[in-house]
């Protein structure tokens, strides 16, 4: 009996310690996705010449790049034998990705060779923070890309990641001009036409936009889904950065316009009171939605809108070029596939963008160079990505060619050549007013003013809450005098 009790006690102690260890691990480490082992690698590349690291660590905030990498780099057999690719994904919300990335980068020197970050992604909202630091490498001098490699890219995608000394610290596969994606069926009901040219005429200024919103409301539709839908059309056309040289937070007039417009839309019932990225917002983009349209940039259409519009998700790996027949079959009649179309909308804008940065201390620079070249410079890869995924990729010539190609059409957008619009819009992108604080402040003002739009608090309280949250997040910032 005593022996039995002892065994039980021992087991309990073991179980507890195991669960403690497990808990500790869960809390401490961000989830890492193991690479796909069964990916065939037909022709191993003759590189690497020098001794390269065995593990390639890539950090990102969602699986967008992971999917591209799998299909267009790993899938093409470009990962050398014996190199393991490890993705670490930490969601963007509330600066969580930045915080996790910062911690890893600060620890980069002490990390074991296989744990060191080699490549990481940054978004426009906080790209500057990493560009102006020693944690990113010059893609020309350090990584080894050439000027010719990047000559075809949209200039603004390079300017934004150029540091104060003139070094280019990142490279992107996409340019992110913004458009307004509307539901053809709803446009027909409200405006009597679903032709993009006609709809654009009806929505070419904000005054027109208000008029259409009123008409849509009368017919039982909502013009926009949530409070933040039109945010980027204002916030990315500001005349000054969020923070001035004295570290004071400056709210641009354009942001004030967004607040005014959204309050009016909310009070009049022109929107559905959702917030960006929440379930109700995603549902509004799907078959059950009654929302006229959404402001979206390139990635939003291929990565978010398409997914939300479908009733049943597409099988893994199926793209428009991988198997055109199966793709057509899987999408026809699936949800509201084909019911969206895009127009320039009332205002030219951009939204987001992802850049690849090489981390200082990486032991896989050869491979990083190859990934950057293939994924962001190689016209052929970029064209395939556009054809497969509707993404607007970072090669001026290729995009112009597609824009003028009458045979190119997006089935998702009902046969429209959206690249034509994007190519036009991309010319106007000006990112000179971004700051390292954009993510926290953009999220902060959206969260704080939600209460104002709802009518829970008045304008001044919302503003005060915004400043409070901003200074909590960035202790170095100050309120304007």
């Amino acid at each position, binding site marked *: 009996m005593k022996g039995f009790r002892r065994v039980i006690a021992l087991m309990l102690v073991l179980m507890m310690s195991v669960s403690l260890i497990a808990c500790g691990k869960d809390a401490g480490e961000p989830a890492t996705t193991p690479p796909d082992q069964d990916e065939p690698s037909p022709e191993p590349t003759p590189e690497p010449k020098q001794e390269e690291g065995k593990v390639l660590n890539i950090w990102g905030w969602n699986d967008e790049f992971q999917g591209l990498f799998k299909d267009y780099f790993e899938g093409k057999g470009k990962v050398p034998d014996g190199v393991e690719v490890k993705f670490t994904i930490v969601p963007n919300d509330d600066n969580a990705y930045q915080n996790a990335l910062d911690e890893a980068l600060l620890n980069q020197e002490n990390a074991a060779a296989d744990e060191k970050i080699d490549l990481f992604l940054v978004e426009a909202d906080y790209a500057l923070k990493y560009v102006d630091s020693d944690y990113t490498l010059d893609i020309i001098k350090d990584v080894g890309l050439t000027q010719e490699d990047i000559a075809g890219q949209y200039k603004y995608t390079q300017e934004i990641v150029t540091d104060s000394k003139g070094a280019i610290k990142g490279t992107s596969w996409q340019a992110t001009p913004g458009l307004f994606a509307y539901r053809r069926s709803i446009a027909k009901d409200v405006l009597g036409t679903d032709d993009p040219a006609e709809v654009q005429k009806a929505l070419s200024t904000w005054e027109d936009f208000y008029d259409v919103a009123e008409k849509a409301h009368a017919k039982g539709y909502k013009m926009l889904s949530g409070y933040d839908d039109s945010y980027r059309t204002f916030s990315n056309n500001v005349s000054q950065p969020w923070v001035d040289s004295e570290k004071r937070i400056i709210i641009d007039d354009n942001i004030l316009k967004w607040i005014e417009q959204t309050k009016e839309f909310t009070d009049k019932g022109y929107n559905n009171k*959702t917030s960006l990225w929440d379930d109700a917002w995603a549902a509004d983009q799907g078959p059950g939605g009654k929302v006229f349209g959404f402001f979206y940039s390139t990635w939003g259409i291929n990565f978010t809108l398409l997914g939300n519009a479908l009733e049943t998700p597409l099988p893994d790996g199926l793209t428009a070029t991988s198997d055109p027949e199966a793709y057509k079959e899987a999408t026809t009649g699936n949800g509201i596939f084909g019911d969206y179309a895009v127009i320039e909308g009332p205002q030219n804008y951009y939204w987001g963008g992802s850049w690849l940065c090489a981390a200082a201390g990486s032991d896989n620079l050869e491979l990083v160079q190859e990934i950057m070249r293939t994924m962001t410079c190689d016209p052929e890869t970029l064209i395939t990505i556009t054809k497969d995924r509707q993404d607007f990729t970072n090669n001026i010539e290729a995009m112009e060619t597609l824009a003028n190609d009458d045979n190119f059409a997006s089935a998702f957008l009902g046969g429209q050549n959206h690249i034509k619009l994007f190519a036009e819009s991309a010319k106007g992108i000006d990112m000179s007013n971004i700051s390292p604080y954009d993510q926290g402040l953009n999220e902060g003002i959206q969260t704080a003013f939600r209460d104002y739009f709802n009518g829970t*608090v008045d304008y001044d309280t919302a503003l005060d809450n915004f400043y*409070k*949250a901003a200074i909590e997040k960035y*202790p170095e910032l100050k309120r304007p005098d």
Partner: protein
Amino acid sequence: MKGSKKAKSISYAKWGYIFLIPFFLIYIIFFMIPVFSTFYNSFFENYMSGLTQIGPNFVGLENYKTILFDSDLPKYAYNTLLIWIVGFIPQIVVSMVLALWFTNARLKLRFTGFFKTVIYMPNLIMAAAFSMLFWALFSDIGPINNFLVAMGHEPISFFQNINATRGLIALMNFLMWFGNTTILLMAGVMGIDESVLEAAQIDGASSWKTFWHVTLPSIKPIIVYVFLTSLIGGIQMFDVPQILTNGSGGPDRTSMTMIMYLNKHLFSKNYGLAGALSVILFIVTAILSFIIYRNLMERDSSWETRRSKQAIKGGGK
């Protein structure tokens, strides 16, 4: 042999100390050092600006000034206590009733073991999972709203309503902890000598009077304990409101608890302000515990304490 000569003076005390070493080691490493470093940190300006560290610069009591006079700490303290009380009152009432039912031999309740397990269940679920569940249930397009719409009611945006958000947090705290409290109170009630209860009944006391004058005073120490632990747990309320409001603290920061506020500073790696806030919370918790404990225990000079003292003197049971 030497041993047999010294046998009389062998002291086992040293083994006591040796066996205590692991406890003190762990206590020092995981408790004393963090507490002192928190105190230490609270006197410095120390945070991350992007990838560069600012500080640590000694700023004296500046952080305390900021927290006490230049922040909304009183508001967050009010939120925390309000949500705690709204959850605690039903918790203690329901637990009391359940404890009495489960321990009452006359009721001849069946399946008590089953019910005890069921009411304890919510406590086993992770608070994070539990609040995710509520968040999904009460979201703008969640099942509760679907139900309301199906009943012909307007949908309600629960998380944009101050009372609804606070109420939901209180409800979840209640659901998670009333099982635990029931078990504790049952232990207290079962510890009462049957003969005392019988004597009261023979004297013609109604069951309400028995409860009020016999049961309740007898389990006072347990109630004090429940109250104290719940209050301290309440001050540390964090995970439920954090997940339910996605860290924003609900509409107009009205469900932001003190620890959520602390977390905001920790999240931006602002060790100075976070340290000062922690120290303030530490002191408040210590004072509250001390006051309540003394008040409730000292006033208790009824026969119950005397009796238990006698019992201890007499060797106890």
